[in-house]
């Protein structure tokens, strides 16, 4: 036998992208470009509507990561929205920090708050964990209502000196021929777009990584994942802290744009938890595409139905219950199952290629 005998070998490749997702990636790039350039042509109302859509989607992606993947069903994320908002006000009004610069700082501080919060709240399980997070949010709300320097129970507004110090306003004013408040909205819009895109990218990269595999395993069957050596506690802690930071930054943006804050609004269960949960559940929990669908649907509903007040909320509640009972995977779940679509490819596929190569005998 000569040493150079050919022996067919096979090589393997792991792929995540598929044809539909490659098309979606290209489309996403185009959409992003369009969104960035949109302020040049869109009216102020549309810009404000889109800011709302973007930050609700960012919040929804965070909650989805928390509840749909890590199994941490929190009814208290409003704690970090409010904390983020108040921190922004504190940093800018009391600390004189530039508003845009303050946002990442807010994220960091929220992460620091989230750590001890998690250590306490993680002592509870399941539905009790959920209510526990709500209690924490209430504690934050009541605590901030005591801060007279930030307006106490009635809240406070951002001083004009702060709102006009947002960088880029002059540039937008001249480039797009707008007045200062509209220009400020445009800046907020770009920040919101950046936060949303950043959150999407962050969640996507996490879920694609090895940690993401672990999260998927936890989502599917926690006990089995633990049995395979996944460090559940560590991962849940990391997810909780990371989403707290992201949620806090979104909260900072929201209240920078609103320029007015109060404890009841900043820590509202309805605005920052109920609506977010609705978006994720109706869109499709445990997938990345679901919250996108849910956010768009929610935006449309808010736009056309919010005037109906209590009836609108009854409709939302009923819809949520019906989806939970009869279509637990949400709208995206129904579509994806029918057509096998994935826009954010995460499944790993083994691609086998056979080839003849020269290889030495072992």
């Amino acid at each position, binding site marked *: 036998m000569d040493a150079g005998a050919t022996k067919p070998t096979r090589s393997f490749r792991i792929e995540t992208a598929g044809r539909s997702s490659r098309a979606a990636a290209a489309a996403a790039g185009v959409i992003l470009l369009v969104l960035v350039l949109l302020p040049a042509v869109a009216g102020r109302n549309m810009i404000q509507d889109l800011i709302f859509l973007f930050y609700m989607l960012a919040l929804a992606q965070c909650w989805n990561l928390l509840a749909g993947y890590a199994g941490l069903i929190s009814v208290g994320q409003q704690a970090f929205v409010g904390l983020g908002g108040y921190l922004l006000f504190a940093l800018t009004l009391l600390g004189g920090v530039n508003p845009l610069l303050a946002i990442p700082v807010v994220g960091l501080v929220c992460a620091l708050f989230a750590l001890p919060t998690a250590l306490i709240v993680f002592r509870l399980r*399941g539905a009790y964990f959920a209510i526990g997070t709500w209690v924490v949010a209430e504690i934050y709300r009541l605590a901030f209502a005591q801060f007279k320097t930030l307006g106490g129970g009635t809240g406070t507004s951002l001083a004009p000196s702060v709102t006009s110090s947002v960088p880029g306003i002059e540039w937008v004013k001249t480039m797009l021929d707008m007045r200062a408040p509209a220009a400020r909205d445009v800046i907020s819009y770009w920040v919101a777009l950046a936060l949303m895109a950043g959150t999407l990218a962050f969640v996507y990269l996490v879920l694609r990584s090895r940690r993401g595999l672990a999260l998927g395993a936890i989502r599917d069957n926690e006990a089995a994942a633990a049995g395979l050596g996944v460090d559940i506690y560590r991962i849940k802690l990391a997810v909780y802290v990371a989403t707290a930071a992201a949620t806090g930054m979104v909260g900072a943006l929201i209240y920078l744009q609103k320029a007015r804050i109060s404890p009841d609004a900043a820590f509202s269960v309805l605005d920052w938890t109920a609506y977010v949960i609705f978006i994720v559940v109706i869109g499709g929990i445990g997938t990345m595409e679901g919250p996108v669908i849910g956010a768009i649907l929610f935006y449309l509903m808010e736009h056309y139905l919010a005037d109906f007040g209590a009836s609108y909320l009854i409709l939302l509640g009923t819809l949520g219950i019906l989806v939970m009972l009869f279509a637990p995977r949400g709208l995206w779940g129904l579509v994806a199952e029918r057509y096998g679509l994935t826009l954010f490819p995460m499944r790993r596929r083994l691609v086998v290629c056979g080839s003849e190569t020269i290889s030495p005998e072992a």
Partner: protein
Amino acid sequence: MTGWLDALIQGVLLGGLYALFAAGLSLMFGVMRLVNLAHGDLIVLAAFVILVAAERLGLDPFVAVLVALPVLFVIGFALQHVLLNRTLGRDLLPPLLVTFGLSIIIQNGLLQIFSADSQRLRAGAIETASIPLGGGIAVGVVPLLTLLSAVAVIVFLNLVFYRTPIGRAFRATSDDLEVAQLMGIDHRRIFAIAMGIAFVVIAIAALYLGMRANFDPTIGPARLLYAFEAVIIGGLGSFWGTLAGGIVLGLAQTIGARIDPEWQILAGHLAFLLVLVVRPRGLFPRALD
């Protein structure tokens, strides 16, 4: 000194109300492992039912609640049978989100029907009656009745759970649903009955809620949090623990209020956190699970 003594007494009496809030939640969790996020709103709903019965039939609230009890039992039975039984299973999400949705529906439904106006259950002279204990301290008759009712409810629940066949069925179903079926227990019916009983307890809680203070459709969530805190402080699996938890919460609030009236609710929440950190299983948990 009398101020502090007064705070202690008021705290214990307030604890009776919180124990009543918590007893229903404790029962639901004990039998069905259901944590009902709409619990507080159901108490408010019950208060409105009693209000309607009292106003339409010209009844004193104490009599109106007797009329409301069977109505609420049926509502609870139906709610479990038709809706909540469908959410049972290993998955955590459905019961949580369905009850959350229910909470929103109830709040807004009540808003539609009754508006956001504050309501009160009028009971006449008894509302302000009090029993003087000497030294300038007096105990309100209604708060005292609240505490006594809480004790009575817990005695009743313990009796049902530990001395009756259906109580055995409750405990067995909660232990092992599959094997309970092998005993001939129809778990869906058992859960519905348990929910009906929980609604009766909720009705009693609503009676005292409505007499003690004003209520409106939006105060539900806060009551849920108090009920929840009382259950956790007391420890899961024990009805007497729930009473203790309610009293501890009540004391924490009144003592906090004594230091600064604005701190009342915050003090309660902080006491809850403290118990969670120091004794995560509560003060009087049952040995199992």
